């Protein structure tokens, strides 16, 4: 079977890859491009560990076919920090001890960044409902929600 040739942009860089038609964006990110920051927790869109944005829209990379990214702009956790400057969300997650095992953390960060781009002043409920698609089994979410609210407050200043 002929593989598909895809030209896309990932974290601002031009990228070309070959993929099978049934390969998801997550498969290609992890297995072909070795961008393993996006995690596979379920492969069914239930856990959010593979959250990325595509043309600014928050998606589960496991629910996007890789061929769909032709011509798109994809942002992953690997593109979140600006050189050696962490994104404020990344720093606040560290400050608030908002991670334990850390496997869900990339997905939470990508999802939270997407929230704050749309709503710079979310309520606790708005944070909780926006992040309801990201599962964390370690933290009980408390410190994650605090980290996001604290980041939002700081970024508004």
């Amino acid at each position, binding site marked *: 079977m002929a593989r598909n040739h895809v030209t896309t942009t990932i974290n601002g860089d031009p990228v070309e890859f070959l993929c*099978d038609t049934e390969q998801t964006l997550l498969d290609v990110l*992890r*297995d072909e491009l*070795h*961008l*393993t*920051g*996006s*995690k*596979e*927790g*379920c*492969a*069914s869109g*239930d*856990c959010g*560990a593979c959250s990325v944005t595509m043309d600014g829209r928050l998606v589960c990379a496991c629910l996007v076919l890789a061929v769909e990214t032709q011509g798109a702009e994809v942002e*992953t*956790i*690997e593109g*979140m*920090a600006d050189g050696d400057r*962490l994104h404020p969300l*990344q720093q606040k*997650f*560290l400050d*608030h*001890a908002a*991670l*334990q*095992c*850390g*496997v*869900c*953390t*990339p997905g939470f*960060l990508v999802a939270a960044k997407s929230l704050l781009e749309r709503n710079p002043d979310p309520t*606790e*409920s708005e*944070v*909780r*409902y926006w*992040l*309801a*698609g*990201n*599962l*964390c*089994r*370690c*933290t*009980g*979410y*408390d*410190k*994650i*929600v*605090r980290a996001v*609210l604290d980041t939002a407050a700081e970024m508004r200043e």
Partner: protein
Amino acid sequence: MAAVEKIIENRIDDKTTDSKALKWVGTRAPRPDGVDKVTGRAKFGADTHLPNMLIGKVLRSPHAHARILSIDPSAALALPGVKAVVTRDDFPDQPAGAVQPAGEMIINYRDMTRNIMAREKALYEGHAVAAVAAVSDRVAGQALTLIKVDYEVLPHVIDVDEAMGADAPLIQEDLITEGMDPAPEKPSNIAKRVEFGHGDIETGFSQAQVVIEREFKTRPVHQGYIEPHACLASFSEDGQADLWCSTQGHYVARGHCATLLGMDVSKLRVTSSEIGGGFGGKTVVYLEPVALALSRKACQPVKMVMTRDEVFRASGPACGTSMQVRIGATREGKITAGDATLKFQAGAFAGSPVPAAAMCAFAPYDLEHVRSVGYDVLVNRPKVAAYRAPGAPLGEYAVESVIDELAKALELDPIEFRLLNAVREGVDSSYGPKFGPIGCIQTLEAARDHDHYQTPLGSGQGRGVATGYWFNIGGQTSATLNLSEDGSVALVVGTPDIGGSRASLAMMTAETLGIELDKVRPLVGDTSALGYNMLTGGSRVTFAGGIAVVGAAEDLIRQLCERAALTWDLPLDDVEWIEGEARPANGRAGSEAPMSMAEIAKDMAKSGGPIVGRHSTNAQGAGPSFGTHVVDVDVDRETGRVSVTRYTVVQDAGKAIHPGYVEGQYQGGAVQGIGWALNEEYIYDEKGKIENAGFLDYRVPVCSDVPMIDTVIVEVPNPEHPYGVRGVGETPIVPPLAAISNAVENALGIRFTELPMSPPRVLAAIEQAG
């Protein structure tokens, strides 16, 4: 929103806690592995690739119980790109009775080899029957469909009460119950009976004015770690092998794999990846020996990763149970007797955590007459794995529910009733040993005095309280401090870091050495780097690892002082280590300029060569911990949905090395408990197949399901640890099941004796109550 920072200290005079101010211990220092985890750089189990790597996949039984008549892999092997197939024939059988303790569970290799690859029978849906390694995921998947297995389907049993019945299908045809006198003559599914307690139960009940007896039933659940099991194995033609895997214990995994494959333990090196949650579920092996066997056959590296569906069907899980509890008390509120019978699903092989459940069930109470009996029962489910304080949440759910009913019957405040009966130092525990310093009373008092407990409830809401107990453990642990030539140190430990232990261990190291925290680089070494290490489990790492790193730091200090003494030509006794530097002491104080670690390190070649601090220990004296939880709920009378509106965890940590990660353990355990109480359950169809093997239908709590979780860290120091540490990771999951059930009863006036209290069950009960 107020930050949750409340620490109650109950200092006692002992060797562990002096008045000296601590620089690092007790602070919220940055976490050394943090940046890698917020940037996506951290490598978890599935994140490693090797050149020439194959993909391995497992063929699993579609039947809950079936005899395997034949397995024919020839068509799969003929498929281009398939490099190896393994079945039961590739694993040597293990002798009966080859048993060893590992963490909080007992390992039986005869069972383990059957669990990782079915032999005579497939014992649960999802049981591994064969595995294939191929050049791609797609070819491996296609190969699985070509393996021909002939099954004779047998009757199955899932429910624990049914499995104990006389006519139940036998999971292991030759199983004679242990712990019965006389031993039964006929085989059954009951692997073991255990009993704990003291006094005379009937004497105790004869002294009671109020006796309450209830039966409880709970559904099986899963640990629900977000990272599926994953590993990468590379077996060389010379018989040496490497394994990278996500595990709670790479030394333990090494031992299991070497035994199952029949190889020398030291020929296998295991490197633990970052671990994406475990909660006890990654203390055992599933894919690892299979990947090694495939790699040995194919002579290429083999990577294997479970799907979420496989995680639910073939890993973990935790028990479902059936329990009876009877407790009696005087009218004044003194408990006179407690009696519990606990029946736990073990899965297809013996070894449920029912002994621990029986030991913990009445542990918070000072009882003259107490008995708890446990039955370990085989059913057609995967062998259960440890899940955070294995067994304790279940037994204590039943006991704490009855305690709550008794308090109500006696018209006593539930916390005051517990305080009237709570254990304290010097009391004989319900399961045997006498308690040392413990914080049961302190957590109850802190919960009673907390703003949460003092705040009136909203209309229609209910409030519940429960207390929980867990032993915590120590065990074999090694640590090494390698002094670098610039005076910084590499700290090597052998316990995978599951929730911030590199931070806490580095903090205790820097504190003991008297140096800056950023001069310590903590790393988890592979199995060749250190002496043996038991796994990360039993809430043991900050306790036992703390003893190891403090011992290694003291060993390093001794050598640093020796080098300074040599340099100054002073007797060793005239050199002391203060604030990270060697200083002349006694009559020679001030005679030489102090030497820092950097100065000593710079000249170590001249003063005797490399300096390495080491400590290996079989740590004893783990401090048991108690927790009391307070929870408020709202129940939607139209849908049956229970919402947790406020939650407070109070727990004795001994000493919180890093309070942020201690709070995190409290909060995470509470929310896992909320899931267990309200939603999580395995649902089986009539053929014994799981109907909800995914996160959509097996519903763990999501962010919008829960409120902030307040925490109170009580500190009653453990005298057996240099900084007073008890374990903290497991106790937080013990009280929630009962606390929430008690809150629902308080809201509705309906006592639930089944978990989970999911909306359909709650709605049915509301409608039945009219």
